[in-house]
């Protein structure tokens, strides 16, 4: 319980220990703690940023999807339109073709009819001549009476 030199020794030891702690112990550990705090802050900020970017990406993807859908709808509409056009054209072509064929057929029929009529007329003329011959009981000079026969034939 005596106060003696121990007191001063303890003061010196205390001063040395504090100095050592201040120089070699506290700063490196504190630096590491600060560094870790910075690192964590950075990590959190990066996570935040990543989340934001993800959100933006999601939005972008949604927009792109929407655009793609619109485009697809557009293409379908266009195809529909084109289909209708092709359909119409084909119909028109077919109609034309049909008309042409019909016209040709008509013309042919007309021609055939005319031909038949001509033939009939000629036959009728011959028949008339024969009948006249029989009536006159003499041969008619076909060539002398050709005009007469033709006018007759024309009347048939």
């Amino acid at each position, binding site marked *: 319980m005596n106060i*003696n030199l*121990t*007191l001063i020794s303890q*003061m010196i*030891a*205390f001063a040395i220990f504090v100095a050592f702690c201040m120089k070699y112990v*506290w700063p490196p*550990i504190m630096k590491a703690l600060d560094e870790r705090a910075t690192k964590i802050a950075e990590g959190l900020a990066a996570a935040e940023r990543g989340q934001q970017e993800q959100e933006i990406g999601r939005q972008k993807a949604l927009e792109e999807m929407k655009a793609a859908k619109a485009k697809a709808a557009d293409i379908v509409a266009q195809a529909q339109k084109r289909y209708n056009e092709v359909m119409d054209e084909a119909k028109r072509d077919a109609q034309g073709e049909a008309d042409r064929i019909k016209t040709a057929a008509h013309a042919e029929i007309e021609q055939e009819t005319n031909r038949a009529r001509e033939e009939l007329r000629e036959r009728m003329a011959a028949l008339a001549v024969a009948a006249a011959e029989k009536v006159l009981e003499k041969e008619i000079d076909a060539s002398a009476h050709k005009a007469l026969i033709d006018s007759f034939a024309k009347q048939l």
Partner: protein
Amino acid sequence: MATAELTASDYIQHHLTNLTLGWLPDQGLVFAHNADEAAAMGFWALHVDSLLWSIGLGYLFLIGFRKVADNVTAGVPGKAQNFVEMIIDFVNENVRGSFSAKNDMVAPLALTIFAWVFLMNLMDLVPVDLIPWAFGQFMSLFGADPHHVFMRVVPTTDPNVTFGMALAVFFMVLYYSIKIKGVGGFVGELTLHPFGKFGIPANLILEGISLLSKPLSLSLRLFGNMYAGEMIFILVALMYGHNIVLSLGGGALQLAWAIFHILIITLQAFIFMVLTIVYLDMAHQTDH
């Protein structure tokens, strides 16, 4: 070691005497053989046990922390680093909470005080007879009488140790008071409050007492608590060896007191640290 040839007061006296190295007029430089010789050595004597334990424990603390500081990483900390960081964080929180000025010395100082005082107090939990007995037996190998070999293992029960630390803190308070406020400011602080310039003597007495009471209360609080705690351990130890009932009762008491003492040793280390921070903060305050 309440043996037959020892009375209870002898036993207590033995436990409360330091291993004192000093100069005796008739014997020269020797270790004191009893309390009277230790007292006769006067001021120029050393408490070898207090100093060895206190410096050894301080060295242990610094080496341990230095080892961690050497391998410190800002990444994932290991177990030792975690432990050290926990203590440093705790000290740092206290310094930031109580100390408003900027001074890079205060936090390491607070850490040193907290860890060192805690370790010194922790020696109180070592069974009170173990180390003194072992040391006495060891010294008797060299022909010394174990009854005259002293060993106190708790440095904070030595007022020299607590006063030494408190005085160092006191000098720091004086140094920073003068450095921050200037000699005039510091003298003004001591003399012009609280009664203004017409009450200078009264002011000086009041402020002087409040200034001087700082190291005194700081050291006496720690010393008183640890001394009383050790005394109770010694008194409890007196119960051993009489009969089975007293021995068992003593064991139970010692256990109970040791558990309670864990709180006290931590609290005292914490109080010493916080008061040091507060005193230094007051020394840094320019507005009174």
